[in-house]
């Protein structure tokens, strides 16, 4: 029997290889995120709105839209030709498949977030002290992890049931509201130098809860 970590590694490597070949998830989601940022740029171009505030809003709105698209595409790859059934037939713990999917989806969502971050700098004049950039990338990574943790379960559920993909955002977005709230607050705190401890704990705890919830429910989400 294949070891747990080996199975996780194989799933992640397979997803990264597929994405490197097709660029389907990152390209689609990144283009969509850029369009969101451009919409913000056009919408606020004649206002006196603070670019810092508009930039934060654009970053996290793009995060939700592009992230939803990302998890949809990631689940779509497994739905095509029932590829997920092939994973479920392997003698590996099904939670290893889940962990692998979460890690690869986190990587895809994070790449799109970084593209979005660059775009809000260019199009919205968003500025952040260089020293705060690694911390913001860390926040985005943690948020992407929480988003993917629940996104993988919900997208799998919608693809394998009669709910359909259109139900995905309706089910997913309410579950990630605390991630967004913490993300917005942390982005503001990093820009102004305010303390981040409380919101960081909120984000970390909630992402952890979503991950544990996903581990516990993935087995049922893959059922027909």
């Amino acid at each position: 029997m294949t070891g747990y970590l080996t199975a996780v590694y194989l799933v992640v490597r397979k997803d990264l290889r597929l994405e490197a070949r097709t660029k389907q998830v990152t390209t689609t989601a990144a283009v969509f995120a850029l369009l969101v940022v451009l919409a913000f740029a056009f919408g606020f171009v004649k206002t006196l709105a603070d670019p810092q505030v508009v930039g934060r809003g654009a970053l996290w709105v793009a995060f939700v839209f592009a992230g939803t698209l990302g998890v949809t595409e990631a689940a779509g790859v497994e739905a095509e030709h029932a590829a997920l059934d092939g994973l479920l037939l392997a003698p590996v713990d099904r939670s290893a498949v889940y962990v692998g999917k979460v890690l690869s989806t986190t990587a895809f969502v994070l790449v799109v977030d970084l593209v979005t971050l660059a775009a809000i700098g260019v199009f919205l004049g968003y500025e952040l002290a260089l020293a705060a950039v690694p911390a913001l990338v860390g926040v985005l990574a943690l948020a992407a992890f929480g988003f993917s943790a629940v996104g993988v379960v919900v997208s799998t559920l919608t693809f394998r049931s009669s709910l359909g993909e259109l139900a995905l955002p309706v089910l997913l977005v309410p579950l990630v509201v605390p991630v967004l709230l913490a993300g917005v607050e942390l982005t503001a705190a990093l820009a102004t130098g305010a303390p981040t401890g409380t919101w960081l704990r909120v984000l970390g705890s909630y992402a952890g809860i979503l991950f544990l919830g996903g581990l516990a429910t993935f087995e049922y989400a893959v059922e027909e």
Partner: protein
Amino acid sequence: MSGDQPSAGGEDGGDPPAIRADDLTKRYGRFLAVDGVSFSVADGETVGLFGPNGAGKSTTLRMLAGLVRPTAGTVHFGGVERSLGDPDATSGVGVVTHDAMLYDDLTARENLRFHARLHGVDGVDARVEAVLDDVGLADRGSRRPATFSHGLRKRLSLARALLHDPEVLLLDEPYSGLDQRGVADLGRILDGVDDRTVLLSTHDLDLGLERCSRALVLDRGRVQADLQTESTSSSEFEAAYRRAIGLDAERDDQSTGDHSTALDQR
């Protein structure tokens, strides 16, 4: 042809059957897809699951494969009860369904290597080349399944199912969508694995009869008949099949109904 009653099998104190399903039931809401199906398949036996569309063949196979959780009932492989989600549950089972379960953007060889590693196969590269050769795809290993015909996809799917050298093969409608050449090719491949226990579903009576030594006829989620098919002619089998799924009875009822109507009108 032997009796028309479902047989429990494997309960004579000898070796446990390779596959045993006890009272397998699957309910989707109000819809009862499989209704207390029980049967066993002896080691090395090839058994066909026959039945019309919606009879419960695929759901039964998917429950055996561990892809669908039964509402009730148990599955044993080699006398050991297997539960859904147990990593060991399907380690000795190879499964082919309607879907290829492969990634279009990996090559055939990459797909097989991925699945071989997931199954913990030793000597992955050699094994992958061996199964590619077995299914006649040795020269197409570098191509992506997206470029394959339906028949080639089916062969690649069978290669995936054979990678870990399973003792039991579950084949759901393996002949569906294949032309005559595809059927012949698949038949030759299956001839090469006829030392294994095979449970295959089909609604093609002739192809199933040719391959199987025993037939389980499913209809409305139940086993309606368990027939020994060796030295059975195609017409005898078709007649037994029609009786099992009530086709002849329906025809008789319709004739009777028409007659009654005519009498009433008079």
